[in-house]
């Protein structure tokens, strides 16, 4: 314990120089944990929201369905029968029919996806109950982004045109029964939600669906002919890739901060070794072995990270706690980020994140601290005492 005690004593004895390095390093610490926490929270909350509102416990896709290719939609539908029908009847799944359509809000043409869903379904937390039909009028549910883009509001009517199974165009007036506010853009932008049965009748596809959303408690029954099961790992992969790409941008920021902190420590170490040669000579004369002096100086540098961790904990924990519990209000512009963010962003921190960051900073600081001390290995006691580098 002698060397750590001496290192700490030397470090604290260096006063302001130490504290400047420690403050910069603690900022890096805080920024790393904070940004990682934000992106973790962002990813987790977006995944939760998407699971709740859209994805359920996974989806069976019609074998022709490709959400990235609208041209496939015409052929991407099939009868919900057998095992799938049984799941729907047991309340463990809900079918969704997706077809292309066009609306004419304010006299302008706009291509949309028409999505039919059972108004009484409980599988996803979409407010489909508003689609309960009353009379001949077609009830339609849209999201707040769609409402904003099209200028439609609750109670408005718009002409809806679609093609049935034979390719024949038809049109009807649809009334907006509800504008839902959701953080999940993939159930909102460019989409109209309709009662499933009505859409099946309109398109001439009775009992058919494009995809079947299963309950979150559902365990896949295996292969079903004509349908492909997509689990949450697959369905959330785009979101995760997006979060990852944003993380890379944030990583650049903290790598830069860490680099500056390391530069300051490296500089301090180089200066220390240059300025404290006489002290090293004295330590050698008193009987401290050269290897111990290397340990001492390396540890002095590495202890910057320990002090930085303590300092970051003092001011960082309350701030991180605040972001985790109270959240961080998001400006409206982030709605265009492609994430299901919501109005507030809550950070998520794990012990692994804090321990991992501490370990990373400690390791990098130790390496940076050790590099200049290698010079000591070549230092002759007599040269050191004269203040010379060997």
């Amino acid at each position, binding site marked *: 314990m*002698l060397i750590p005690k*001496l290192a700490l*004593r030397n470090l604290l004895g260096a006063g302001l120089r130490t504290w400047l390095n420690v403050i910069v390093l603690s900022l890096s610490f805080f920024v790393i944990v904070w940004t990682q926490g934000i992106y973790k929270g962002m990813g987790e909350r977006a995944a939760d929201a998407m699971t709740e509102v859209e994805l359920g416990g996974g989806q069976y896709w019609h074998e022709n369905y490709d959400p990235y290719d609208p041209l496939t939609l015409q052929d991407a539908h099939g009868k919900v029968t057998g095992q799938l029908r049984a799941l729907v009847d047991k309340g463990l799944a809900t079918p969704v029919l997706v077809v292309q359509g066009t609306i004419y809000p304010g006299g302008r043409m706009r291509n949309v996806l028409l999505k039919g869903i059972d108004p009484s379904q409980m599988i996803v937390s979409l407010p489909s109950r508003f689609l309960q039909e009353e009379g001949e009028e077609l009830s339609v549910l849209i999201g707040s982004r769609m409402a904003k883009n099209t200028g439609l509001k609750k109670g408005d009517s718009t002409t809806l045109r679609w093609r049935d199974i034979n390719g024949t165009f038809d049109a009807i007036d649809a009334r907006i029964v509800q504008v839902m506010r959701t953080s999940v853009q993939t159930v909102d932008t460019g989409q109209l939600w309709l009662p499933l049965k009505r859409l099946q009748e309109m398109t001439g596809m009775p009992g058919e669906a494009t995809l079947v959303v299963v309950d979150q408690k559902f365990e896949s029954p295996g292969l079903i002919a004509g349908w492909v099961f997509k689990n949450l790992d697959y369905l959330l992969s785009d979101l995760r890739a997006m979060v990852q790409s944003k993380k890379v941008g944030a990583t650049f920021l903290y790598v830069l901060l860490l680099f500056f902190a390391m530069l300051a420590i490296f500089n301090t170490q180089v200066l220390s070794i240059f300025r404290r040669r006489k*002290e090293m000579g004295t330590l050698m004369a*008193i*009987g401290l*072995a050269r290897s111990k002096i290397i340990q001492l100086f390396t540890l002095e540098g590495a202890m910057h990270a320990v002090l930085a961790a303590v300092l970051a904990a003092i001011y960082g924990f309350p701030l991180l706690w605040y972001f985790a519990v109270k959240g961080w209000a998001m400006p409206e512009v982030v709605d265009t980020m492609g994430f299901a963010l919501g109005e507030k962003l809550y950070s998520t921190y794990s012990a692994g994140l804090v321990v991992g960051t501490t370990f990373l900073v400690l390791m990098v600081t130790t390496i940076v601290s050790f590099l200049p001390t290698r010079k000591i290995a070549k230092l002759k006691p007599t040269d050191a*005492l004269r203040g010379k580098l060997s």
Partner: protein
Amino acid sequence: MDNSVLIKTDELVKIYPMGQTEIWALNHVSLAFQKGEFAGFVGPSGSGKTTLLNIIGSLDSPTKGSAEVLGEKIEKLSHNQAAELRNRHIGFIFQTFNLLPVYTAYENVEFPLLLLRMSPEERKKAVMDALDWVGLADRVKSKPAQLSGGESQRVAIARAVVKKPPIILADEPTANLDAENSHHILKTMERLNRELDTTFLFATHDEKVIQYLRRKITLVDGKVTKDEWMTPKASGE
């Protein structure tokens, strides 16, 4: 080696290469020192005084010949063995005091004992005794920057004697001190030599130090030109 002989050099040679030429800092120096001696190497700058002191103190190794300190051949010691020898058996006093700047007087004196892994109680007693010897028991909390030159050198002496080593090597210990402080320091060292039977070896060309020596070895160009026993002209007695 005779039991009472602590230090012995035999045909000691130290050569420093300087470009194409060589500088003979020590040229076949053979000397022996017994326990309790108060001796000094005297001579002009570049005569080899400090080099000889450094080799005896295991801070340097000879090019040729042998230096034996407390039965250990300096030229055969590894870095760690040399550090161990210095830590346990040799105290150093330097011209520029060489106190550790961030430590207090107490901590500077305590440092060698930390390396010896003494218990805190033993350490405290030894440090206070050593500071008491040099008359600085009331400056324990002062840092080197707050001490005068004379006080700093006294702390350095306390640091050298705190572990009660059999040998203390002092390289120009009074060079940065005024006459009054020099005499004070030398009297302190002489008293320690007398009371603890510590062997003191000086490298000096300061007349004030020479007055206190009981043995004066004159070096010129790395060679011993004179080795004389003296009656000290000045004494703390």
